[in-house]
């Protein structure tokens, strides 16, 4: 019994999961294909996977998608960077001055619970149909994620570490630079995957509500002429881009957060 169960455990560890993940994806495509081909699902509303793939291939082989994808990714990146920096700064500030935090508390709660996507048309009026109205929408989404994780994180900085830094001669500014900021980076990274996703949502939704370029714009155009295949193609391209961004974040995290114990080390340490 024992040997068999341990064998099974090693065999699952040895065989990688990705072939199964690819198989699952293929299976879903085949199912989609069969259902629409037999017209159990009307192809007019559900699209046809082969044509969707053909559209994606066409986009990339002619390079026509690239300027649109480039704009969407640029908006995402800017929204992400601006939102993170502002969220980090505000989180540190309010985390360190409880008076200001109490003063602003109702406003923060209000802004956070407000459905901020509604702001998109207003931003479009304020900042035009260019990239900045989308960036700003993304910023309002990213800001609160980063802000809350830093704001709560500041209170959890080890008091012993703070005492130690003070005994070693750290001034108030040096405490910020050498204790609070590095700690905060950990919390920022903890929320990074969510905030990149949110920046992406901000960019695409912004484009969808009014723009002249971007993948969201392509989707909007296709919907206007009931071209469901193109809509699905746009959605798939966006999904792939999101996966890629998430992967990049993971790589960045590994590089910058090498000081953090990962699960493996934690298990080995006694």
């Amino acid at each position, binding site marked *: 019994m024992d040997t068999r169960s341990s064998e099974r455990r090693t065999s699952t560890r040895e065989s990688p999961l990705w072939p199964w993940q690819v198989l699952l994806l293929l299976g879903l495509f085949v199912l989609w294909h069969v259902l629409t081909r037999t017209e159990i699902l009307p192809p007019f509303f559900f699209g046809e996977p082969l044509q969707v793939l053909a559209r994606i291939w066409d986009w990339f082989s002619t390079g026509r998608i690239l300027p649109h994808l480039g704009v969407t990714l640029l908006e995402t990146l800017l929204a992400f960077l601006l939102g993170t920096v502002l969220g980090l700064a505000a989180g540190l500030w309010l985390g360190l001055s409880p008076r200001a935090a109490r003063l602003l508390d109702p406003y923060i709660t209000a802004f956070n619970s407000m459905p901020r996507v509604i702001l998109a048309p207003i931003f479009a009026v304020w900042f035009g149909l260019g990239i900045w109205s989308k960036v700003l929408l993304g910023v309002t989404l990213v800001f609160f994620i980063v802000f809350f994780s830093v704001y709560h994180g500041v209170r959890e900085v080890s008091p012993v*570490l703070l005492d*130690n830094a003070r005994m*070693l*001669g*750290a001034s108030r500014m040096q405490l910020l630079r050498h204790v609070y900021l*590095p700690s905060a980076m950990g919390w920022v990274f903890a929320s990074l995957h969510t905030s990149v996703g949110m920046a992406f949502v901000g960019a695409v939704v912004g484009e969808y509500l009014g723009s002249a370029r971007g993948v969201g714009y392509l989707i909007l155009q296709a919907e206007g002429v009931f071209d469901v295949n193109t809509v699905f193609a746009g959605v798939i391209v966006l999904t792939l881009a999101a996966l890629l961004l998430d992967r990049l974040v993971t790589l960045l995290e590994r590089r910058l957060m090498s*000081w*953090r114990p990962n699960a493996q080390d934690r298990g080995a340490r006694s």
Partner: protein
Amino acid sequence: MRADYTAVRAASLRVLDGEFVSLVGPTGCGKSTLLNLAAGLQAPTEGEVRIFGTPSSGLNASAGYLFQTDALFPWRTALDNVAIGLELRGVVREQARERAREWLQRVGLAAHATKYPHEMSGGMRKRAALAQMLILEPRMLLMDEPFSALDVQTRQLMENELLGLWAQARRCVLFVTHDLEEAIALSNRVVVLSAGPASHPIAEYEVDLPRPRDVQEIAMHPRFVELHRAIWSALKQEVMKAHGHAFL
């Protein structure tokens, strides 16, 4: 810490330059409070702290503090952890690292300079913390049960190393511990605190054992045994008070 808890009251304690003084007492008797007062991390509600004769308020700049729990910067390597005190004082980074390397050597961590705290063992982390404190050459060392989390072997090793470092440059040390053997083996003087609240020193013992000492060998010394018995008889009553006679 509760604001209304009087940990220490009417406590008077004097540590001479170059002296190694241990504070022993039952848990909750305010040993750490006394240490924090000396460090300036806490301000006394009454009375004053004098550092080398001058009344002190605010942080005690001439003291180094070794904490009970880990206080290394988790995002800095062993080397950068040791260097940080100098960096905070405006020493150029490369110079600070150079001196830090010497100190790592001195505490036996030269081979582990690039390790992060989570990659080090408990003993290694203590050594790094010791170097982090000593690199600034503080005139007084404050230690709050620094070795209590280590296993017995590592602990005795660290105690001997501490004695070695102390012998090289005799600074005054205020060492808090609940381990009476550790206190006697290391110190010139052992101060017994009464049970809290409102704890205060109740007895002092001069430790006239020869130096240099080895913490394992010194424990066999007849004078050690004699001192241990005498101090324990004073300490025992306080420990029992602290536990509300739970053992009786």
